[in-house]
Each structure stands twice: as structure tokens, then as C-alpha cells.
């Protein structure tokens, strides 16, 4: 009988370590073993330097970190009763940029991470199209993602590591021609959705409300569903089914669900624990096994991400699916791809709302350097879920900077006798390949997690 099973490189350097008892996983540890120390590096740096540093926490969701930083810095002005005026145009351009990053990430996640693993569960050669680096759909998806991301480059200069936001607005000033080009790039993602991912008319998809509707689709989503159901993926991967959304936008609402009711967030109840986390410059203790911290709300574990967003925003289709299959791998994956459709729809609308005659930037009345001491914080919905930044400044310098990324909520270590969200979803499974898929269903990002 196996006692321990290790899957290293589950994503980058992340490792999954499972213990076994009577052919079932009795304990699971998700180890994140790469650390850079952003929170230490940010200390004592000039305040605006954070705009260059934090996007580089992650090469996949840098846009989200940029927006979180800008909004945390703007929150400082609010907290000293000098709220800045941000034009609608600047707000739109920021949200559009973030949405496009999530769109890109969702496409890549489905075709480059989840589907290759799911396809391995079946021997049918018709699924060879999902094979990494070679399969026709893998290549096609990578091309579509590259095209879509150009829409950010138009307003952000480049992607990854975009920097075009600054307290007071954005630096870029797109012309109508630029905005049309962005629409065209997004249109390619919509066509991809219609021809390949969903195999169904876009508008028709958006009107879905139940499984029967979903069975009308005829693309990769159905491939996913067929393999998933054959392997009982609608029955595994269940965690606490408690959900949290901290940020809000045109598409997302903030809130939390425990058991059934949606309720408001009280940000003072968010806490971070580092009981099982390595410490800088201190030799490790027996129980410490990862660089990831643990994020809690009112001392409880909550899942964050597209499924949580769909439930809290009351999106009907996913709510029906969730009623039937709860927080399973199937629901989680479907919620993310459903969100892709809604993001495409919303983002196209947002671009059409940009009024090019408005200013992009309104200069703050005074510099952050002139503030004696203050604190600012922000909540953003990034690809993988809720991201929060908190900064304390003093006389032009950053005193402390704290980042809680979505993966910390979902994949952070458990504390005391309680499992973390993904741990809970894995313990009890009977195969390591299923455990791997459950873990992937949360969309791991190891670099973000440890930062």
C-alpha cells in the first residue's frame, strides 16, 4: 500500500504530496517552494514605485496587481478625505484591461492546463487535438489568446507587465481607431467561442439557463462534459461550498455565501495566518511546508474564483448547474468558461462606452509624498478570484505592503484541524490523477501565491 505520493511540478515548482490510507488519500499537502519576498522588497521604496513592482509579482495576472496597487493608492487619498476624481473613461479603460487579461487567462487555462489533463483520462484518439504543443486545438487556442491580448497592448503598451495606470487615471489616450481595433481583437475570441469552444451562437449561449440548454452546445465544452461525466468529475472536488468575492465590477458583485444566503463583506474579518508557512531568515519548523500563507474570513475557509462570482452575481445557468453538482470539478470548470462568455460580452459593451473626449487623467491636488502617514487598501477580481492589496505609507515611502492573492484563499495550507479549501476537495479521493485534476480545477498560480 502506498503511504505517500508526490506530484512535483504540478504547476511550476508547486508540489502535491498525498498520504494514503486504505486506498484513499488521507492527507494532502500543497507545497509552494519558490519565494521572492515582494512584501519585503516594497518596504521603504518610494510610494509610486509599487506601480512597477507589484505587476511583476505575476506574469499572468500583472494587470490585476497593477489595478489593485493603483486603487490602494487612491484609497489613501480617500482615507485622508481628499478623494481623487477619476473620469469614467479612465475607470472603463482599467476595467477593460483587466477583463481582457482574464479572458486571455481563461482561454489558456482551459486549453493548456485543464483539457490536456482531462483528455488523458480517455483513450479516444479524437481527443488528440488537446495534446499540448501539438494538438490542433491547443495551437489554435494559443493563437486566439495571443490575438486577444493585443487588445490590452493597445491601451497598455504591452502584455505581460503592463503599466498604464496611475493615481488619478490612466496614461493612455486611445483614439476611436484604437478602440475599434480592440473590438476586432475581442471579436476573434467571440468567433473562437462560437466555432470551437461552445460550437453555438454567442447570443444563444448567453441565454442558457439549464443543463438541457448546455447539451445543445457542440464544441470543446461538450468534449469536456463527456469525459468529465465518464470519470465522475461532477462528483469529486467538493470543498466547503462557501464562497467569497471581495471585488466588484460591471460584471461581478462582492459578497459571500456560507450555506445558502448571500451576505455582505466586512473587510475587517479578513485575516492571514502563517502557522504552516516558512518564515524568512528563520529555520523551518516541523509543521512548516510551504511559502503560501492561509487566508480566512471570520476564521473560516472560503473558496474564491469564477464559480464563487457566478453564484454571488446570481448567474442563472451556473446556479442551476451548481444546484445539481455543487462545487465539483465539473461545476468549477464550467463556471470559469461560462464567465469567459460573459466577460467577452460585457467587455465589448464597455469598450463602446468609452468617450474619447473625456480626459484620461486628472492630476491629484497634492502628491502622496506630502502625506504624513496613511493606509490604503483595495479589492480586485483577478482571473483566479479575489485579490487584495493593503499599503501603509509614511513620508513618501512605503512602510508595509500586504498582498493576499486568490490562490492563497484556495490553495493555502489548512490550520489546526481544518483543511484548506483545495485540501478538503482532495482528501478522500482514490487516485492521484484525480487529485491532480481537482487541484488544477482551482487554477493554480504558484508565483502569485508566494510572491
Amino acid at each position, binding site marked *: 500500500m502506498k503511504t505517500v505520493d*508526490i*506530484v*512535483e*511540478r504540478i504547476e*511550476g*515548482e508547486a508540489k502535491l504530496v498525498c498520504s494514503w490510507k486504505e486506498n484513499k488519500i488521507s492527507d494532502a499537502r500543497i507545497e509552494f*517552494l*519558490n*519565494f*521572492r*519576498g515582494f512584501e*519585503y*522588497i516594497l518596504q521603504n*521604496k*518610494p510610494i*509610486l*514605485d509599487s506601480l*512597477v*513592482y507589484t505587476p*511583476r*509579482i*505575476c*506574469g*499572468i495576472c*500583472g494587470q490585476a496587481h497593477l489595478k489593485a496597487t493603483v486603487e490602494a493608492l487612491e484609497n489613501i487619498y480617500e482615507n485622508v478625505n481628499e478623494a481623487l476624481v477619476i473620469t469614467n473613461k479612465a475607470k472603463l479603460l482599467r476595467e477593460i484591461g483587466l477583463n481582457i487579461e482574464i479572458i486571455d487567462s481563461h482561454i*489558456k487555462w482551459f486549453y*493548456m492546463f485543464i483539457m490536456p489533463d482531462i483528455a*488523458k483520462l480517455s483513450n479516444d484518439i479524437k481527443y488528440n487535438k488537446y495534446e*499540448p*504543443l*501539438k494538438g490542433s486545438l491547443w*495551437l489554435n487556442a*494559443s*493563437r486566439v*489568446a*495571443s490575438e486577444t*491580448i*493585443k487588445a490590452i*497592448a*493597445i491601451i*497598455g*503598451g*504591452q*502584455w*505581460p*507587465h503592463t*503599466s*498604464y495606470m496611475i493615481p*488619478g*487615471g490612466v*496614461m*493612455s489616450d486611445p483614439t476611436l481607431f484604437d478602440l475599434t481595433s480592440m473590438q476586432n481583437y475581442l471579436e476573434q475570441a467571440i468567433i473562437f467561442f462560437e466555432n470551437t469552444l461552445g460550437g453555438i451562437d454567442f447570443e444563444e449561449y448567453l441565454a442558457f439557463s439549464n443543463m438541457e440548454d448546455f447539451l445543445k452546445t457542440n464544441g470543446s465544452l461538450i468534449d469536456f462534459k463527456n469525459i468529465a461525466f465518464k470519470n465522475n468529475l461532477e462528483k469529486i472536488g467538493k470543498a466547503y461550498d462557501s464562497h467569497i468575492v471581495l471585488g466588484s465590477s460591471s460584471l461581478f458583485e462582492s459578497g459571500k455565501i456560507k450555506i445558502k444566503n448571500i451576505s455582505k463583506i466586512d473587510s475587517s474579518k479578513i485575516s492571514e495566518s502563517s502557522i504552516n508557512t516558512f518564515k524568512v*531568515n528563520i529555520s*523551518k519548523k516541523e509543521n512548516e511546508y510551504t511559502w503560501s500563507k492561509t487566508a480566512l474570513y471570520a476564521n473560516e475557509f472560503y473558496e474564491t474564483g469564477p464559480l464563487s462570482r457566478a453564484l454571488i452575481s446570481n448567474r442563472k445557468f451556473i446556479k442551476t448547474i451548481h444546484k445539481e453538482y455543487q462545487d465539483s470539478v465539473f461545476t468549477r470548470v464550467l463556471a470559469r468558461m461560462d464567465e469567459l462568455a460573459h466577460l467577452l460580452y460585457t467587455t465589448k459593451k464597455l469598450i463602446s462606452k468609452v468617450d474619447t473626449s473625456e*480626459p*484620461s*487623467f486628472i*492630476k491629484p491636488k497634492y502628491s502622496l509624498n506630502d502625506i504624513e502617514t496613511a493606509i490604503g487598501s483595495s479589492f480586485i477580481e483577478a482571473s483566479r478570484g479575489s485579490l487584495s492589496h493593503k499599503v501603509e505609507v509614511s513620508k513618501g515611502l512605503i512602510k508595509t505592503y500586504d498582498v493576499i492573492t486568490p490562490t492563497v484563499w484556495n490553495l493555502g495550507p489548512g490550520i489546526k484541524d481544518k483543511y484548506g479549501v483545495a485540501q478538503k476537495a482532495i482528501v478522500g479521493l482514490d487516485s492521484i490523477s484525480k487529485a*491532480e485534476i481537482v487541484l488544477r480545477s482551482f487554477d493554480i498560480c504558484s*508565483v502569485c501565491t508566494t510572491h
Partner: protein
Amino acid sequence: MVDSQDMVKKVFTQKSARIDTNKGEEYYNCLFENAKQRISMLQKQPALKDIDMIDVIESEGINRRDFMKWVSATTATLMLPPMFEPLVAQATELMNRVPVVWIELQDCAGNSEALLRSSAPTVDDLLFDVLSLEFHETLQAAAGHDADRQLEEAVEHFKGKYLLFVEGAIPMANDGKYGTIGASGETFHEHLMRMSKDAAAVVAVGTCATFGGIPAAAPNPTGAVGVMDLVKGKPVVNIPACPANPANMVGVILHFVLTGQIPELDSLLRPKFAFGYRIHDNCERRAHFDAGEFVEEWGDIGAQNNWCLYKVGCKGPMTFNNCSIIRYNEGTNWPVGVGRGCIGCSEPDFWDKYAYERPMANANIKAPTGGVEKTVDEFGLGLLTATTIGIGLHAVASAIAGKKSEQNEEE
């Protein structure tokens, strides 16, 4: 004042920082012959992957003309005269003879992301179908022991032949415990040394792998350093920038396929074809700099009219890179294009030296190659405009433009 101006001038015009875009007929003819021999040798070697570039291109519906356009652009990127275009086209088809192993250390995956967005003809195909990418831990299918085995096999099988691409810095503090990999808990340092031992050359991609990057910013809690600080006794190529431009990554591989050697490097081990001149030399806003038209603050009349960003902190005059020509995301745009200004991300220590809201005009910033401590205003605008480094490239570009129209006529 005069002394320091002379020093600055020396810094910007010294041999190691200058690129010679016309090395003379004899040089190019000799290189051409060598490349021809190298290519015919590679053609005789069995392909690591049985995929024909031209088939790939045709099956993807890309016409020959689009492919040749890409070849022209790439030849120009490598600073080779148009006579090399047929060889570059052939080398592209032979990229499946050169194995590439890509490892990630203390990174953010940003360079891998950039690579996925490499420039066309659907270079996704070019790279993934034709280039023999033997190992890439994020992109490949295998995880766990399979991934480890795949890596070991690639390194063993292609001993002495593969190009090792490294993304991310190496944490040296606390015995390297800030980054470990695999079941054995090997440190990033050990991993790098083991993987580079049998590589033909090591290519450090991104500012983390080259100079330590943001992980090495003060107080550098993990003791991060770059590849060149550790790997000795074999060629190391640095492709800094955050993220590195994929065009330059492809350029280095193509150069290797074409000549069997790494490209000519500057004193910081950067390929001269990409880092031989400054952002400023080829910037689209350069005319406004020369005319003294500056953005004074974001959103002002200057910003609305795309004037020069030097006074709001653009580090273009201090930064050696080709982004002003190649741009990012398949040429879609670049930071200066949206009015942000260059942050100098391909220069050593950019994270501590050049960071954001420190317009050069009122900060003490050292020149990139060190040694000169003068505020930039004292550099003098006249001096900055005096350099002519970029002109050679324009000559190459226009030569290609001519070549292209010839082709069009033939068709």
C-alpha cells in the same frame, strides 16, 4: 561639466556599447559561406522532429509571401544584410535540429507568457511544431515524475548540443532554500548548475535571469542573482527586459541555427543585434525631444499630442534595447506608444535605480554602464541628440524595403 559630458559621451559611444551595422563586404561574404556550410551540415542531420516548416506554413494557410515578410523582418532584427534572407528562411526550417530546454527558477512566468506571444508567421507553430522544445515545465503535458524524467532524458540525449533557456533569478541566501524543485528538493542553484553543465550555451531570458531582477531589489531578501554570476566556462547570452522580447529569443536561436554560434555580445553579454542601441535612438517621439516638446505631466497638452516623455521619467535615453523598433505583442504596441515612458527594464538594477516616479530631470541617476554621476539635465540635450547609433539600422531597414518591393513585382 565639460569633463562629465565627455565621460557620458564615452559611455554611449564606447566600442562595447556600439553596434557595427556594416562590417564590410568581406566580413559578410565570409559569414555567408560559413552559414551555408552550417546549414548544409544541419540538413544532413536527422530532424529531431519530423515536421516540415513549409508544410506547417501551408497547412496553416499562410502564404509564402507572409513567410518571406517575416524572414525579412527577422534578418533585419539580426542586423544581417538582405543577402542572408534565403539562409534565414532555410535556418527557420532547420530549427527542429536544435534542441531547446527551458527551465524556470525564481520567476513570475512572464517570459514564458511573452514567448507564447512570439511574432508570426504563427510562430506558435514555428516554435511548437518546428523548434524542438524538449522541455518546458509550464507548457508541456507531463507533470510529476514524468516531467522530471523527460527533462533528464532531454539533457542526456542532447548532451553538449542543447540551448538551455533560463527564466528567473537564483536565490542564494539561506543555502538556496528560497527556491527548490522536484521530489529531491534540489535547490534552484543546483538545478541550474546541473542543467547547464552539458548545454551548448545558456540563454538567460528576462531581467531576473540576467541581472537578478526584482527579486534582487533591496534588501534582496532571498539573495537573488543572475545566471552569469554562477555559470562559468561556457557561453552565456543575456536577453534582459521585463519581459524579454520574444523576437530577441527567436533571434538568438536562429542565429545559433544559422552560424552554430551565439551572436556577438556587448560587455553585459547582451546580443548586440538587439541591445546595440538605445530606445531613445529609434523612438517614435524622438522628433519631439529634438524639438524640445515635452509632456510635463500626464494628461496635459503634450501628452495628448504624443510629445516626448523624458520629463515625466522616460528612461529611453539610458536604456539599450530594440523595443522602439520591434515593439511587443507582435508589434502591436510598446510602453512609449501609450504615453507611459520607458522604465529601463532591460538595464541592470533598473528596479532600484530607475523606478517609477523619479523623472530623470530631477533625480541623480547613473548612466547605465556606470561611472558617471550627473543629473540628466546636466547631460545636456545636445549631447543626447548627437549620437548616431541608430542610423545604420535604418539603412538596413530601407534596404529590405527595397528588396521587398522587388519580390512583390516578381509575384
